Each structure stands twice: as C-alpha cells, then as structure tokens.
C-alpha cells in the first residue's frame, strides 16, 4: 500500500513537471501521432504500389487489414510508453552522468523509484491513433473478423501482457546498464523489431519468425492475435492467451532478477 501511494505521488509530480511546458507536451503528443502517421503512410505507399499482398500460405492481405495490424501494435507499445519511459534514460545516460545515485540512497526499491520518476503522456498520442486506426480499418467492408469471446479475451491479454513484455525487455537492458554503463543502442536493437511486427508474419523467413515469436516474442503479442482474429491463423486463442501470460511472467521475473543482480554491482561513475 505504501509503495502504491508512493508510486501515484511520484507520477503526479511527474505530470505536474511536464505540464510546466504545456505547449511542448501537447506538441510531443502530436509528434508521436505525426511519427506514426508518417510510418503508416510509408506502409500505405508501399502496399498501394502493388495490386495485392499475397502471402504464401496465408492468402491475400488488403491495405485495411495491414492498417488494423498497425493500429493494434501501437496499443501495447503506447501503454508501455506511458509508464516506463524513464528506463530509456537509464539505458542511455543516467548511469554515466551519475544521476541514478540518488535512487540507491532512498528506502524504496530502486526499480519502483526509477519507473515512478516519469509518466510520459505522449503515449496517449500512440494509443489514441492506434484505437482510431483499429476503428477506421475495422469498419471497412473488406475486413472480416472472426469475433468470438475467446478472441476478444486474447486481444485484451495481448495488449496488457504485451506491454508487460516490452517493459520487461526495457528493465533487462536498463539493469544491464549498471554493469555496461550504456545499453541504449543494444535495447534500440530489440525495440526496433517492433517495426517488423507491423507486417504479416508470412513475409519473413522462418528464422526471423522464430526469433520474433520465441526469443523476442513481439509477434506473439501483436501479429499472431491479429492474424487469428482476421482468420489467417487457426490457433486456439485460449492456448495463445496462456502462452502470452506465461511469457510475460517469465520475462518480467527474469528482468527483475537481472535488475537486482546488476544493481548489487552498481558503481557510481558520475559526479
């Protein structure tokens, strides 16, 4: 209870400090929307240059189905963005500039202290655009869904536990920064793979599909649930839901262990 109160107090302070620059906060929210609109337009221009995207073993994907997938990917990404953005700073410079020292001096878990420092309202820009994309693309007559209770549960689980999976990777690399000092570029490498789950799985060879499903399970939380909903895959949605929850639990536990082990070896490098 004490930790929860502390977390919300910190978040409130973070929001107040961001609102000190109201204009820039609004521009930043718009900026994330602009970034995603640009990225989406790129996909549109590419797919629009051919009659249809016929994927081996899956059939034909139309532009609206790809737009729906794109919108869905933005949801777990946006949720993670809201709560754990401070970890990017840990990966890039907070160890080297010594500003993380103060988090080790307070009687609070360092991970909670660090995450609670920043609430990033820009994530709302991604979530709003993601929902808009899902609605616009989902309402098109040539997008047919396989709506069942199990599929709806799968989508909700994919969003919530998907955000936890992305955050778990962030925690791992932020923890590794205690030893390696700077892990931003390494984490960028993992995070950038979210770009490729915006396309149907069938485009990529088996080795990339296995990598993005079994090791960095971003396809598991985005492409697979959407492909099940759109009828491109016939996996059992309950089993996939259980796999997603299990993957999130395993990765989060692993991330916390890495964070704690690396935190015990933390050395201040700044002033």
């Amino acid at each position, binding site marked *: 209870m004490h930790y929860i109160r502390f977390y919300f107090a910190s978040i409130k302070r973070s929001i107040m400090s961001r609102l000190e620059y109201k204009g820039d906060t609004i*521009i930043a929210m*718009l900026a994330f929307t*602009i970034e995603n609109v640009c*990225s989406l337009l*790129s996909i549109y221009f590419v797919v629009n*240059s*051919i009659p249809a995207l016929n994927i081996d073993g899956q059939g034909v994907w139309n532009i609206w189905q790809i737009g729906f997938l794109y919108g869905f990917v933005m949801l777990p990404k946006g949720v993670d963005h809201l709560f754990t953005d401070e970890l990017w700073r840990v990966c890039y410079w907070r160890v080297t500039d010594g500003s993380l020292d103060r988090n080790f001096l307070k009687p609070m878990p360092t991970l909670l202290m660090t995450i609670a420092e920043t609430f990033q309202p820009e994530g709302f820009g991604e979530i709003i655009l993601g929902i808009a994309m899902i609605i616009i693309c989902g309402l098109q007559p040539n997008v047919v869904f396989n709506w069942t209770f199990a599929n709806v549960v799968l989508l909700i689980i994919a969003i919530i536990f998907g955000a936890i999976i992305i955050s778990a990777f962030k925690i791992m690399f932020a923890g590794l920064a205690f030893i390696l000092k700077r892990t*931003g570029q390494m984490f960028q*490498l993992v995070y950038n793979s979210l770009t490729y789950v915006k396309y149907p799985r069938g485009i990529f060879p088996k080795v990339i599909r296995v990598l993005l499903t079994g090791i960095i399970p971003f396809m598991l939380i985005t492409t697979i649930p959407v492909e099940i909903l759109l009828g491109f895959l016939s996996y059992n949605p309950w089993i996939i839901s259980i796999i997603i929850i299990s993957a999130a639990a395993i990765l989060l536990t692993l991330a916390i262990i890495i964070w704690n082990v690396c935190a015990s070896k933390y050395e201040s490098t700044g002033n």
Partner: protein
Amino acid sequence: MFKKYKPFFKAGMINSMAYKSAIIGWFFITIIEVLCTLFLWFAIYKNATSPVINGFTFREIIAYFIFSNILSFCIFGGDTGYRIDKEITEGTICMSFTKPISYRGKNLAIALGIIMNKFLMIGLPLTLIAYTIFILTGIIKFVSVWALLFSLFSFLILVLCSIIISDSLEYFTGICCFYTTSGWGLNLAKNSIVGFLGGASLPLAFFKFGKIDFSIVLNYLPFAGMIQNPILALLGDYSQPQTYLLIIHTIGLSITWIFLLELINAIFFKIASKKVTVQGG
C-alpha cells in the same frame, strides 16, 4: 572570418567521437533493418505486375535503403535543435547572447564538426564500399569513368548541401523553442517529418494516392535534398544525357534552398530573440 568558429567545429568533431558504442549499435541495427527490409520488398516485388515499381527495380530499392541508412545516420546527428533546447531549459542561452560571435555560426560550426566527422570516418568509407559492390554486381550501371567521377562528385556536393539544409531546419526548430520554452516535442515532430519527406523511409517516387503524384511537389521542397537527392546521384542512369541535367538541376535547387532557409532563419531569429526566456542558469 571563419577562424573564430574553428574551436566549435573542433569541439563538435571530438564530441562525435565520444560515442563509439552508438556507432557499433547503429551498425548492427542497420544490418538487421536492411535484412528485414529485403524480405519485405521481396514480398512486394513478388506481387507486383512489373519488375519496376515507380522507377525502381528490386535491386535498386535495396541499394537505395542501404545508402539511405548510411546517410541518415550521418546527417541527422547534428542535434542543433536539441542543443538550443538544452540551452533554453538550463538557462545557459544568455551566455551565448553575450558572446561576440554569431549564434547561427556557432551552432552551424558545432553541427558541421559532428556530422563531417561521422561522414568522413564512417559514412564515406561505407558508401564507397557499397558503391563499388553495387557497380561490380551490376546494380549500378557503369557507363564511363567520366560518368563515375561526375556521380561521385555530385554526390559529395549534394551531401554537403544536405548537411547544411538539415542543420537549417534544426536551427529553425531550435528558434521555435524560444516560444515553447522546451523543445522535446518540437524536435520529435521535426525528426519524423524530415525523415519521411526527405525520403529516408521511402523514395519520394512512391508517394502516390491513386492518380495524385505528390512526388512532383515534394521533389521541389528542401527535404528532398536531404536523403533522396544524394542517393539518386549515385543510382542515376548516366547513359541517359538527361540524368546529368537532372543532377545539375537538383544541385541548383539545393543551393537555392540553403540561401532561402538561411534568410528565413535570420529574420525569424531577429524576431524570436526578443521573446527568449532565460530559465535557471
């Protein structure tokens, strides 16, 4: 005249060398991105009705993305916008205003130092290696030694124009921070727009909505001179005489934009400097 800006140029160069891990990280990211791009475009071209889409064959589009990744890494790293934003939020901008040097000149010198170092140490060698491989494998057509020299020379001129145009837009964003007092959002928006309209993610020839071809207009904007135009100088078909004219026209357009953007920046700075708020410091 330029002597007083030399220390800033040098500082920029040294600063860009401090992040070796960034260079290694970028290299691995690029390899994976190019690989995934390759599979994506393979699927696109497999479904196309013609082997040429919007003037690009499959091999040319892959070459375009390799050059685009190299150029984007070098050109988008000047960080003038973020530097001005930091000066405003930390309050150190008042120091810059009291010094007897041009604020624009100082920022340009730092950015040139950072970008030139990255370009000469990484961008140019990698471009030349890729260019040689593409010529040997026939992806880029070898016409004559003269055409090859023209292509490389015009590429270098266009890269220099690209660096200055990119920094002019960074500086413009930085001045906008005088009004917003924080530039995180502005810089983020600028990066997305510039990358997209500059052709970093896709050649502008693909920018079509049905029968409306946006590339006709976009090719005349300054953004096109940042990523797309230097690459087209390398990929151009020099067996066609009009390619030479097109490249010369592109260079002329880029130089015109440099003058125009610097003029806009000078006027904007004059107005905005009366608005600047010094925080902290």
